[in-house]
């Protein structure tokens, strides 16, 4: 009889667990962006968001994408809603095709993430940021770095998810 309630409690805890992991990713992203002072940031928050959208699409929803999108807008001092818009679209696409994405090999996933991040960065640069000459190099560097970073993030979050679900 209490199965329904138990499930709900479990949903709330996993929901906040996702939020905490994305919050940590946000802090790391801000920390790294201040450390290197580049025009293009390493989108760790987006990568975390992609993972959770892919792994637990029913639990994550869109609210975290909005909250952390606003946080990044505020931190990077660009138009309010620009990150949110992109996060929402990427979350939607990931949640829409999560079956296909899950079935991909790790290299294919990395390539997918790299392409998504490249498009995300280009849109941010073209519509919401200032354009500089050195931005091309930074753009390529961040895309390649994101592709290499994806398996690491995927592995860590997967382990965390399994442990969390097992413990709860």
């Amino acid at each position, binding site marked *: 009889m209490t199965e329904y309630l138990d499930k709900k409690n479990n949903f709330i805890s996993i929901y906040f667990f996702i939020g905490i992991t994305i919050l940590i990713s946000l802090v790391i992203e*801000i920390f790294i962006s201040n*450390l290197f002072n580049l025009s293009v940031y390493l989108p760790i928050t987006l990568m975390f968001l992609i993972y959770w959208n892919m792994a637990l699409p029913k639990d994550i929803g869109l609210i975290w994408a909005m909250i952390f999108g606003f946080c990044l807008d505020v931190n990077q001092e660009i*138009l*309010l809603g620009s990150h949110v818009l992109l996060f929402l679209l990427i979350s939607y696409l990931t949640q829409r095709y999560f079956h296909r994405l899950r079935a991909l090999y790790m290299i294919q996933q990395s390539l997918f993430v790299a392409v998504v991040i490249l498009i995300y960065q280009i849109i941010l640069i073209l519509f919401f940021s200032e354009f500089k000459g050195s931005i091309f190099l930074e753009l390529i560097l961040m895309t390649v770095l994101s592709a290499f970073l994806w398996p690491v993030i995927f592995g860590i979050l997967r382990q965390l998810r399994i442990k969390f679900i097992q413990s709860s």
Partner: protein
Amino acid sequence: MFQKEHKQTSIASNAIFTTGSMRASKLLPSLIFTIFILILDINFSLGKEIKSAFLESFSPISNLSQSTTELSKEISLFFTSQYKLVNDLEEKNNEIEKLNFELLKLEQLSKENEELLEIMGYTKKQTISKSVIGEIIDMSYFPKESISIKTNIAEISEEMVALSLNGLVGIIDQIFPSYVKVIPIYEKKVNIPGVIQRTNQNIILEGIGEQNKLLIKNFKKNSNILLEDKVFTSGLGGKYPKGFLIGIVNKISASKDDSILEVEVQSLSNFDTGTKILFANP
């Protein structure tokens, strides 16, 4: 049969990739809300205040990364040869600062020596019978200009005049137990016997209390005088030694008395330069 199987596979595959996935209709409210905020921020800069308020909450993370950068720099410096180089550089910079200070002192000393040499040159003149050197210790500026000079008071008398690097600068106003107060030659009611160099005409110059201005007393209209004429001390009266430049004529005008010209002399004595003063008696 084969066709039927194919159709089932096709349906199954489609079903797999659509079941449970996000519908576009779910995205729409969030998307509309975000676009609304975006438009508000573009048109009314609504986000400015929110941003400034929230940026403070992000500042600890920013500061943390800054201090991490500094710490990593310090650590990398410590473990490399750069550490020694930076220390050496700092030491050398300190040495350079000390040497620059010494250089400044030497330059000042050299200037003082030159000044002293120039002033002591006056003593060799035959027009000066007695002289005492003194050092400027205090100075007050226009309108009540004066300089205080530390010297050997026992050898000072009120009749002495003050000579500096620029020539005749003033007369003794008061003698105190440890110093002498000197006022400039253009002070009110100071009379100096002079001579116009070009015509050799003797005149009396009088201070009028205006900075660097002296007037020639009772200068007759038919006298020969031109602008830029140089005026020297004549040595008459025995107070001022002969041959010191007082100034140049810079203004000639008619006075109320038709028989007299008003001639203004620009004093060349600079009261506030130098560090030494020579008190002299003719």
